[in-house]
């Protein structure tokens, strides 16, 4: 099975839900509407993609959206294990909410908590929506959003060395 065939199979399984398929190096992303994401993810799981490798969120402040992608793959089907298929949707930046996929893929529970604290995307229906890694005060700042800037030092030093 090659990538084209896989795409065909996914399009068949997902039916009209697919908005577009983006191809990256080493993975493909299936983009759906935010409202359909639970349905699409369930169908993808029935296809054999039984676990999520990465819940990837990318912030596009210019386009005022977050791209949320669940990169899934398969453990039990050795043929599908070679591919990483992402199911993604765009979440508006000013009211970041989306339905949780915990009940589709149990493994994303902690990753959704992580996204919640780093980007502020709230997953409705998540059983335990708390910050995971950060202290509560820092989680308020949503550090992985692009407007949170971490300064790098310039290569020329002003302060003289002390030793």
């Amino acid at each position, binding site marked *: 099975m090659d990538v084209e065939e896989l795409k065909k199979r996914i399009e068949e399984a997902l039916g009209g839900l697919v908005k577009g398929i983006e191809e990256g190096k080493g993975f493909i992303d299936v983009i759906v509407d935010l409202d359909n994401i639970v349905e699409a993810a369930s169908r993808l799981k029935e296809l054999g993609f039984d676990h999520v490798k990465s819940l990837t969120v990318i912030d596009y402040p210019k386009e005022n959206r977050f791209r949320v992608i669940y990169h899934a793959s398969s453990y039990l089907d050795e043929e599908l294990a070679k591919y990483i298929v992402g199911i993604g949707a765009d979440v508006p930046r000013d009211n970041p909410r989306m339905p949780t996929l915990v009940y589709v893929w149990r493994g994303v529970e902690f990753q959704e908590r992580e996204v919640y604290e780093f980007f502020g995307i709230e997953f409705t229906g998540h059983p335990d929506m708390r910050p995971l890694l950060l202290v509560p005060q820092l989680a308020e700042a949503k550090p992985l959003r692009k407007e949170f800037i971490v300064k*790098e*030092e310039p*290569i*020329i*030093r002003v302060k*003289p*060395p*002390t*030793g």
Partner: protein
Amino acid sequence: MTARPVVKRLVKRKGLFAGFKGNVDAITLGLKYLVDPKRFTLIYPNEYIKLDPGYRGFIVLHKEKCINCSSCARICPAAAMRMIKRQEQDPKTGKVKMKLWPVINYQRCIFCGYCVDVCPTEALYTVPYHDIVYENMAEMDWGLETFTRPPEHPVEKEGGIPVKYIVDEERGLVKVKAEGEEGD
């Protein structure tokens, strides 16, 4: 593809005898090592490991080779290597010029060796020792003068014996005296 998954099964060990044998095996092995421990412990301040010359220890500058290109500062991942401005007289023309010199801050250095590898004139080199500690932080922020001298090796100064570790088939690592390799 030559790799393949192989399903294995745990060997079930049940019953009184299996447990007994396991205990006897373990205790015998323990006693074997109690008699012949096969030690290779480094008795540290009395001995020290003479590291390979390629070891990435403290980084030192050959000032005369440096061309002030600031590649090292650009590649430093920890912002430990930074350039300072310094007025210097050119020996040929006699003009006073602003020059950039690298200095290193060991409060941050992570010893990745990128600066040494990127230096276009091999002006930076590493000394093969790493066991230097400081009592106050200010000493770790090396200025240009400190940076151009290799730091003192404390154990060598105290008269420790250099040893080397070689891989041995019977005992894992074996400690042997490093000999005939004085200096760099």
